Every structure is written in structure tokens, then in C-alpha cells.
């Protein structure tokens, strides 16, 4: 082999590797890989970086934390608790906070990091939902994302529970009460998980393994697959000039994207460290050790558990007793198991539900603007309002205290609102989306309203419209016109025999109508041409012709 450029450049180390794993061709391609740029694409990055921060700070904490419920008598630097009996877990958390330099900082970084982690995942998920980034071919990554969110909630709750302070112990007690409510197996589940009665002495060590090994291991594996898929399928992009379904427009991995993303990691880490230094979080020494017959008023879980707590608070007290011996605790099961189960399942399946309703089997690499998918956006807004209402209810005691409102009034208001508000939000959001679509259509046809009023020689006034910029034009043109709703299937075929799968088809058609019963038609190229032409004269009244096919499709059936 002659001396290659690499050798001349002093890359002997790389040659050593490449002689064993020849990867130059592959790596060459990857270094130039293009990543599109948009602020909302950084949300997933924040989640990833928070996870790394959590791994680092968590490893530090694990050097001192003792996951044990053995009772000890505290004698450390925090004088108010000197001589108090507590678990080793709580005592070692106090030690980390008061006797180890940087320990409190790492604890607070770890806690802030956890809050950011869940928040970033949640907002990232909303971004992906509202822009339709979950559509084919990215359904798998959506499911992985939903799983990651679930695991993040679990992991956060586990971490919150480990210090064995009064607040976390109370949280665990609630978790145990929820386990008890499971039909048939409840008390067994609780006894297996806690190694007997609550609280026992097995739980914290068990939870520790779950928190530092099991769940983070799964999260790490899923994140890896998540990123590999992003890499392999290439990132989606927003519509714009020069951006199509078939290309990716952005900056190459090396050096621009690497510098930006790598720099952003340090920014996230830096901000988290500053938060850890400046803002106190979870001061467990103020709560005291967990004692099963004690409680503090106004105790709140971390923000991401608030909606579950709210659901528990919202539910009326329905318990059914079968034959006087078996109890079904709907008051606990519905808010803590059934509703969350439905929500997460529906969320995971959403890409497939939408696909089924639309019959859309094509690949999508250009993102939707939320207004251009009104039903999806309305579903998202509706779900969000449902979540927010539960979350508000989770803080109903704080609201009651702060605003001096009777807590029963708040609860009853929210009990009603949870049924009334989400459907309203659905309808309103859909209307807003169509309004925005109409405005976009107007802009395409007539340009934007300049605010300049002109007077014609014949005395008429009109507002002068200006043509829109090519950038905006490209964005507006990218709207995908929704397909026609699937027709209602015939119940009987020509021979009068009932069609196979009639019920399923009927459901699909119903769903399809629900998604696509209405739409603002995209202007045709000719219309745009003509519209722009017209604009020099009067702004015409705008009537939307609804094309014939659509009118037919929407005609009432049955």
C-alpha cells in the first residue's frame, strides 16, 4: 500500500481502526449528511441531552446513596434532624445534600434534569403530532416515542420515591392503594411488589434497581433505535422554497450541524447546572423522613404526575360490590388505570387510526402546518385541553387556597368541564383551522391585504393587495388537499347477499367522514394565475366553489 493522504495527515490511529473495520466509505457519506434546521427540531435534542445529564448526575449520586430501608439514627450536619430515626435511604440523601461538596448541586441538577426530560419529551411529542411527522414511514418511531414518554414518567416517579422522605412515601402509599384496586389480583400485586405489607423494607432497594438499571437501560436502548431511525429515514422538514418530499435541505453534519448540536448540549447542561445552583428543588430535609401516619397538607407531586393526581381527585366515589364480597373500585380504577390506559393506547395507535380513516398509504417527508390538518389538530387540541383540566384539578387545593374558592366548587366545575370543554375546543379549533386555510387561499389568489385603500375613477374604494413572497407562496402551496371521505359501503351486493366486512367498512367510512367532511379547496394553478391578474382591479367577493365530487360525497347518505 502506498502512503495514503491519511497517513500523511498523521491519521495512523484512524488507519489502525479502518484496517480492522473498514468504514471510510460509509463514514464519508455520513459526515456530509444533511440535517434540516428549525427551532422545533431542538425539542427532541433537549430530551436527549437531559437524558445524558441524568445519566451523569445519577451516577454521581449513586456513589453515596444507600437504597435501604433499614432504620438508622441520623447524626449528620443537618442539625434539625439530629437524633431522628429514619431509613438509610433518607439519611444518605441528607448526607449527599449536606456533607458532600457538590452533592446538593448534583441532586438538584438531577431533579431539574428530570423535569426538563419529561417536559422536552412531551413538547417534542406535541410537535410531532401537530405537524403530522408521525405519518408513514415514521409510525414506528412514534410508538417508540410514546413508549419513551411512558418510561420517562415511570422513571421520574421512581426517582422521586427513592429518598424515602415524607412526600415520596406518601406518593408510594398512593401507588400502593392504586395497586390494591386492581380487580382480582390487586392485593397479590401489592404484596409481591412490596415484599409483603406496605411499606415493608424491600421496596426501596427493588425500586433502586428499577430506577438505575432496568428502566434507564430500556430507555437507552429505545433512544438508540429512535435515533437510528431518524438517521436512516432522514429528518422531516417544513415546506418552503426548494423543499420537497424528495429532498432534505439543511446543513451538513460536519461541521455545522455537529457544532450546533454539540454546542446545544453544553447549553442545556449549563442551564441545568445554573438551575441546580440557583433554584432549590425538592428540599427533602424540610419534609422529614417518611412516617406512615404523618402527612403534610398541600403536598404536590412533580408536574408530570399532576394530571394523574388530578384524575384521582376528579372521579366521583363509585365502588361496586358484587355478591357482597368482591369490590370493584371504579373510583380508583377509572382515573388511575383505565383512563391512562386508554389515553396511552390511543396515542400509540393514532398514526394507524388516521391512516385507516384516510386510506393514505403514501410517504410523507414534508411536515403539515397544523391548520392544514384540521381534524387532527382539533383532536390534539381537545386532548390537550383534557390533560390541562386534569392537571388543574391536580392543584385544586392550591387554587382553592390561593384564590379562596371553595374546593368543592372547583372540583364540581371541573367534573362538568371535563365533559364540556374538550368537545368545545375540538369544534373551535377546527373552525380556526378552516379560517386560516381560507385566509391562506385568499393570499394565494389575491395576495395579502396591504392596508392601502385606493379610490377608482368611478368612485369605488378598494384595498390594494400585494403579491406574497416566494417563500410564503411555497409554504402555502404545500398544503395537501384532503382526500374525499371514503364512500359508505353497500350493505348487500348485487345478488342481495350481505357484504363481508360490512360493519368494519361502515366504521371506516364514518371515521373518514369525521376526518374529511369539509375542506377549503386548494386553488388550481389557473385560478391563482387569474386571481393575481384580477388583483390589479377590484378585489372581488370571494366565493368558494366547492367542486362537484365533494358536494356529492358530502350529500347525506342512508
Amino acid at each position: 500500500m502506498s502512503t495514503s493522504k491519511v497517513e500523511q495527515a498523521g491519521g495512523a490511529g484512524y488507519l489502525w481502526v479502518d484496517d480492522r473495520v473498514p468504514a471510510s466509505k460509509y463514514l464519508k457519506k455520513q459526515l456530509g449528511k444533511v440535517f434540516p434546521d428549525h427551532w422545533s427540531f431542538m425539542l427532541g435534542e433537549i430530551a436527549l441531552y437531559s437524558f445524558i445529564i441524568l445519566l451523569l448526575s445519577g451516577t454521581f449520586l449513586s456513589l453515596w446513596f444507600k437504597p435501604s430501608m433499614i432504620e438508622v439514627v441520623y447524626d449528620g450536619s443537618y442539625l434539625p434532624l439530629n437524633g431522628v430515626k429514619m431509613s438509610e435511604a433518607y439519611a444518605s440523601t441528607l448526607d449527599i445534600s449536606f456533607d458532600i461538596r457538590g452533592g446538593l448541586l448534583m441532586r438538584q441538577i438531577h431533579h431539574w434534569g428530570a423535569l426538563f426530560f419529561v417536559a422536552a419529551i412531551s413538547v417534542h411529542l406535541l410537535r410531532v403530532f401537530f405537524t403530522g411527522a408521525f405519518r408513514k414511514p415514521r409510525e414506528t418511531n412514534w410508538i417508540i416515542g410514546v413508549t419513551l414518554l411512558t418510561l420517562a414518567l415511570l422513571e421520574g416517579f421512581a426517582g422521586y420515591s427513592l429518598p424515602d422522605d415524607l412526600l415520596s412515601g406518601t406518593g408510594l402509599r398512593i401507588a400502593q392503594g392504586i395497586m390494591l384496586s386492581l380487580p382480582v389480583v390487586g392485593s397479590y400485586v401489592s404484596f409481591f411488589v412490596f415484599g409483603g405489607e406496605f411499606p415493608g423494607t424491600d421496596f426501596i432497594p427493588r425500586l433502586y434497581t428499577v430506577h438505575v438499571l432496568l428502566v434507564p437501560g430500556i430507555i437507552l436502548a429505545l433512544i438508540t433505535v429512535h435515533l437510528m431511525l431518524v438517521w436512516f429515514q432522514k429528518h422531516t422538514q417544513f415546506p418552503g422554497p426548494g423543499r420537497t418530499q424528495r429532498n432534505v435541505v439543511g446543513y451538513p453534519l460536519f461541521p455545522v450541524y455537529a457544532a450546533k448540536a454539540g454546542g446545544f448540549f453544553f447549553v442545556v447542561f449549563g442551564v441545568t447546572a445554573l438551575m441546580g445552583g440557583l433554584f432549590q428543588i425538592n428540599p427533602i430535609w424540610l419534609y422529614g423522613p417518611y412516617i406512615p401516619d404523618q402527612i403534610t397538607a398541600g403536598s404536590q407531586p412533580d408536574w408530570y404526575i399532576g394530571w394523574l393526581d388530578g384524575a384521582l381527585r376528579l372521579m366521583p366515589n363509585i365502588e361496586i360490590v358484587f355478591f357482597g364480597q368482591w369490590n370493584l373500585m371504579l373510583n380508583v380504577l377509572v382515573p388511575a388505570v383505565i383512563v391512562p390506559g386508554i389515553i396511552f393506547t390511543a396515542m400509540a395507535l393514532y398514526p394507524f387510526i388516521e391512516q385507516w380513516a384516510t386510506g393514505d398509504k403514501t410517504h410523507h417527508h414534508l411536515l403539515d402546518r397544523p391548520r392544514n390538518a384540521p381534524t387532527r389538530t382539533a383532536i390534539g387540541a381537545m386532548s390537550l385541553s383534557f390533560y390541562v383540566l386534569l392537571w388543574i384539578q391536580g392543584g385544586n387545593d392550591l387554587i382553592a387556597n390561593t384564590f379562596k374558592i371553595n374546593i368543592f366548587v372547583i372540583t364540581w366545575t371541573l367534573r362538568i368541564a371535563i365533559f364540556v370543554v374538550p368537545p368545545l375546543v375540538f369544534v373551535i379549533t377546527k373552525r380556526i383551522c378552516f379560517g386560516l386555510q381560507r385566509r391562506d387561499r385568499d393570499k394565494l389568489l389575491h395576495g395579502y391585504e396591504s392596508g392601502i385603500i385606493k379610490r377608482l375613477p368611478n368612485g369605488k374604494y378598494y384595498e390594494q393587495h400585494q403579491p406574497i413572497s416566494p417563500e410564503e407562496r411555497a409554504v402555502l402551496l404545500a398544503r395537501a388537499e384532503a382526500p374525499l371521505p371514503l364512500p359508505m359501503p353497500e350493505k348487500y351486493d348485487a345478488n342481495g347477499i350481505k357484504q363481508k366486512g360490512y360493519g368494519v367498512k361502515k366504521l371506516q367510512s364514518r371515521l373518514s367522514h369525521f376526518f374529511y367532511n369539509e375542506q377549503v379547496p386548494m386553488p388550481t394553478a389557473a385560478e391563482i394565475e387569474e386571481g393575481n391578474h384580477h388583483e390589479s382591479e377590484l378585489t372581488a367577493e370571494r366565493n368558494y366553489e366547492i367542486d362537484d365530487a365533494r358536494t356529492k360525497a358530502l350529500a347525506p347518505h342512508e
Partner: protein
Amino acid sequence: MTIEPYDSGDLPEHKPRRSDVDPKAAKRAERQVGFLFIASGLASAAFIVAYIVTPVDKEMPLPGFGSTNASNLLLGITMGLALFLIGAAAIHWAKKLMPDVEVVQERSPESSEAEHRDALLDEYRRGIDESGVKRRPFILGSMAAALGLAGLPAVVLLRDLGPLPADALTKTMWERGMHILIAETEQKIRPEDMQVGTLISAVPEGIDLVMEEAGNLNELAKSAVMLIRMDPAEIVADQTPEGKEPWSYEGILCFSKICTHVGCPLGLYEQLTHHMLCPCHQSTFDLADAGNVIFGPSSRSLPQLAITVDEDGYLIAREGFAEPVGPSFWERG
């Protein structure tokens, strides 16, 4: 359907930045980036100094926040800055000095070509054929059975995670004649010690020993009770079954302290209305009316402990709880 390929026009023309055209501006950007990196290095050094110099337990005032731990504050700020400045420098560098021309890359094909798919299928069929599973179904069947069964031991192994509940959920240590102790002082209590309107957290006599022997806090998690004294005239009802000796004593009632919703200890007592509110999800129990639920998610009244006094006038349990305390469960009945 998308109007595909929709006419997205051309990429907007690249507008050069100042640092692209003005060497001075580029030089300035270079200096800024370098300065940010240096500042980060200084912050790292400051972190080490703060680590060595600041005692771990020193408090210092923080305007607007009261006071804070000095070590934590200084370590946090220096570490935060050290990291943040690296990030700021890298991003500044990328934005000002690295090319900002957007690059267009074609996407790879959306799926494999048919010939490749077919070739794969052939290869797969060859493998299946060579393995002979189709011709020898016995192997496949027995393998499936073996794999399935191999999973069972893993499940069985978990059996010893905990004991079976037996009667642990239905029984507490309370029994006839047991003294009621003030939880805080662990002292016996006489009715005279309680004024009308007071509420006292209480535990069964000997609970300390039980817990010490068991090495856990389990008993406290279910035996905790509260004593409440109210004007007997205000008691609408208690849980005394018909024809039995009264469960309350001279206006003193004893209820389980464990919320029947999902088990939080109860905490917020309103003297005037005799309402006990659970701080967790606001289940509200009317202690003057047999501990019934008057609001919130809990579906069961608070179990009442029958009490009386012994010959020395101390409060004792008349008998153990008549029903399970705490959250409901499937086989509770």
C-alpha cells in the same frame, strides 16, 4: 393528496453574512468565539477554587431568595457557566464563521426495489427449505413447546417476591382492652385530658415493640387512629351496631387515620363542621356522622374503633376494628 411534486420554487438566494464579506467582522467573530472558550476555562478554574475554599455548610444571603448554601450556589454558577460558555462558543462559531449555505440532498428511495425483495424472498425460502422445518413438523412443534416452557421458570422464580396477603389486609393489631396511646408522646390518655374540639393522633399500646420485632413500619401504616372529642349533642350518629354497647365514649370517637380512598393518612380537621379532609384527594368524612364520606373520591366511611375506659379511667379499645382499614381491595367484601 399532496399536489406532488408541488411547485416549491427554488431555494432562496444565499445572502452573505457580514463575516463572509468583511474580514474585520470575521476576525471579530473569531475573537468572540475564542473569548467565550477562555471564559469557560476560567469558570472551570473558578469551580475548583470554590470547591476547595467554600465550606460545605456555609450559608450566604441571596437577594430575593433569602439565604442559600454558598457552596451549592458557587459550584452551580461556575459549573453552569463553564458548560454554557462552551456551548455558546460552539454555536457562535457555527453561526458566524462556518458556511451558512443550505445544502440540498436527495432522499433515499422509499422502499427496496422489487428485484431485491424477490431475491431476499428466494434466499429466505432456501433457508427454510434447507432447515427442513416444513418436512419435519415434529421438530418445529417440539421447539415451540420447549421455548414456551423455558419462559415459565422465569415467572415461577418471581413467586418469592412476597408472601400472600392472607389476612394481613383485614387485620390490625388493635384488640380488646388495648390502651390507646398519644402518637407523639406514647402516653396513655384519659377522657379528661381531651377538651371538646381536640383531635389527637393515636396508636395502639405496644406498637413500638411490634414494629421493632418486625423491623418495619407496617403496623403503623394500618393501625394509626385519631381520637376526636366533640359535644355529645353534636354527634348525629356513630357506627355502633344496634343493640351493642356504644362505640364512642362521652363524645370521644376513635377513627382509623388511614384514608379509605388510596391510603394517605388523614390530616385536615375542621373543628366546627367535624369534617375530616384528606389532603391527598380531598375525600371528606363527617366524623360527627359515622365517618361517612360527604365529598371526594373515597367510597367508604372511615372505620370506627370501639372505645371505652379501663378501671383506671384510661381510654382503651373495646375490641379490634370490625372491618378492614385503609383502601378497598377486590376481596375486601
